[in-house]
């Protein structure tokens, strides 16, 4: 299964399990979504549960808020990362705050699926990584899978979770590789990071598409005799603090990797948390390997922008083991 297929399977499973689950988005019905994540679901569940919306991101997320008030469980697809910006007010002023605004009484059991990130040679504003915006806004949980198995188990968790979840889908991984599984994976616990590769000399914390670059970098470094542990955050907010700290206490070195711009990114929060809680464990300064604080470039330059495995490996070599 590719990630697209496993996401589709997760939506299918939850729609079968719970008839309150409805899908909303642009081109998700007849077309099955521009990435085909919702393929065939319209046929299976009908137009009252798979709703092709007008081109109206704010209206769609706002509608989802109203659906939650009526007891439905909306799963919104925002077509591309940057298309979330017109819906920002609905996400942060309403979806994130409605439980609080009702004295804790009403659940905003909603998922906003957000295909994000670069590497697919897309036009402007189709390659952004805005996850930190949502991590910073109280009331939202932000998660991001890095492989088809996690995509399935995490999306099923997100749909069942009683609070709103921004579900970041690394679109570069949608069809990058396949996972074979005989039985579908268990539903995720909603917070735990994964140790994707064990190692003893340094901890690399990453998520989403950058996980693949980080794991490839760990392979390269192994050839140099450097053993790198790679932690896949999965939950970007809240952070699995004990997994991160446990790893840093074993390896004594921390590197964070993401494609999003550096300043105030998820990596900055990871670094700050380690500085607060495991400062004495560190044997060298922390390193952030990230996208630049610039707009995502025109796509002929995107490989220069996205941290590559070679870059990650060479920075780790130089900065931590020179």
């Amino acid at each position, binding site marked *: 299964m590719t990630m697209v297929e496993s996401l589709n399977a997760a939506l299918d499973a939850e729609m079968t399990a719970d008839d309150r689950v409805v899908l909303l988005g642009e081109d998700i019905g007849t077309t099955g979504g521009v990435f085909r994540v919702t393929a065939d679901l319209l046929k299976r569940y009908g137009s*009252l549960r798979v709703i092709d*919306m*007008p081109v*109206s991101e*704010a*209206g*769609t*997320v*706002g*509608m*989802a*808020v*109203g*659906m*939650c*008030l*009526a*007891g*439905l469980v*909306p799963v919104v697809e925002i077509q591309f990362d940057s298309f979330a910006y*017109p819906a920002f*007010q*609905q996400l942060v*002023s*309403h979806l994130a705050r*409605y*439980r*609080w*605004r*009702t*004295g*804790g*009484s*009403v*659940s905003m059991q909603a998922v906003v699926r957000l295909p994000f990130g670069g590497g697919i040679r897309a036009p402007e504003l189709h390659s952004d990584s805005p996850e930190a915006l949502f991590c910073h806004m*109280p*009331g939202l*949980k932000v998660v991001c899978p890095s492989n088809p198995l996690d995509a399935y188990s995490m999306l099923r968790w997100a749909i069942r979770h*009683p*609070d709103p979840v921004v579900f970041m889908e690394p679109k570069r991984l949608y069809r990058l590789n396949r996972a074979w599984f005989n039985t579908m994976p268990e539903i995720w616990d909603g*917070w735990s990071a994964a140790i994707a590769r064990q190692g003893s000399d340094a901890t690399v914390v990453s998520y989403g598409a950058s996980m693949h670059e980080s794991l490839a970098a760990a392979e390269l470094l192994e050839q140099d005799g450097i053993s790198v542990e790679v932690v896949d955050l999965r939950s970007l907010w*809240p952070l699995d603090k004990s997994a991160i700290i446990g790893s840093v206490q074993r390896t004594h070195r921390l590197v964070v990797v993401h494609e999003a711009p550096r300043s105030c990114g998820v990596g900055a929060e990871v670094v700050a948390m380690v500085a607060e809680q495991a400062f004495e464990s560190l044997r060298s300064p922390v390193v952030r390997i990230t996208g630049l604080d610039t707009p995502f470039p025109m796509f002929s330059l995107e490989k220069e922008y996205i941290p590559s495995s070679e870059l990650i490996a060479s920075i780790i070599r130089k900065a931590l083991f020179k």
Partner: protein
Amino acid sequence: MNSTEQLLSYPRLDPLDPVSLWRGMVWLRSYDERAVALQRQGRIGTYATFWGEEAVQVGALSAIRHSDWMFPTYRENGIVTLRGLPLERAWSYFRGDPGALFDPREYGCAPQSVPLASHLSHAVGWAWSRMVGGHDDVALAFFGDGATSEGEAHEALNVAGVMKAPVVFLCVNNQWAISTPVSRQTAAKQLVDKAIGYGIPGERVDGFDVIEVAESLGRAVERARNGNGPSFIEAFCYRIGPHATADDPSLYRSSVDEEHWRSMEPIGRMEESLIREGLLSYSQAKAYKEAVRTTMLEAARRLDRLPRPDRSWLGKGTFASEVFIGGLTGEEVLS
């Protein structure tokens, strides 16, 4: 009824009983006046008054039934007391008190929306969900003339039209958005003209006439209930008071203008006609107003006795489970 007597409960509205509508307006006016007094006395903070909009609110509320939901703005902050939210709890919102926040399912009323227009799509989502669930409930969504300039108003009206959501969009055109007159909001001759662009029926009514509002809303609610989709009602009125207690209208509009509209305010006009038609006597009117006033004074005393929130409230209500927000208040560092 003597002057120390208070009401046992908020007035019930019946669109066919004009005296009940008058009572509802007296209730809201008295609520509003008491709130302004509380603000002047320092017992609550900044308050958004709605003087002049009682007929719009009461006429609209009378046209819906209890299973229909309201989606108010801060300008309709008192309307939920006509569905049973205790008065002191409504005012405590303006004391910055988290205990003011209520479960909307209890009153069929969404929390007052502070951002303009973005709550309209919530009404669409709620109403559409009720409709596809086999219920014939209707959403009544309030918004102002200023809110029509927001992109979110367009999105909600458009989506509602496409999806035939049973929503009545009630545009309360009080002619002023803080200091900005409606002529600076739109080049449209009247706000109701916008309905055409969404393919939905529109009506413009005298927002100072509670009967006219109730009748127009009644038609719109029926259309929605019968599966004929949303409507756009423009209730033309005037914001007699300031935008809020912190605002000074003398900076941007003339007192002549204010006097002109104040002389047409909805309650006195309604009262005169009820007395003329023999539906209400002068002494009955006086006694009722006194009883409402006493009710409000009693509630204001209860407001002062409401417990003040402590620090433990900071973590409450954000998530279903609070285990994740230990860091939110700095508690981890302090302990």
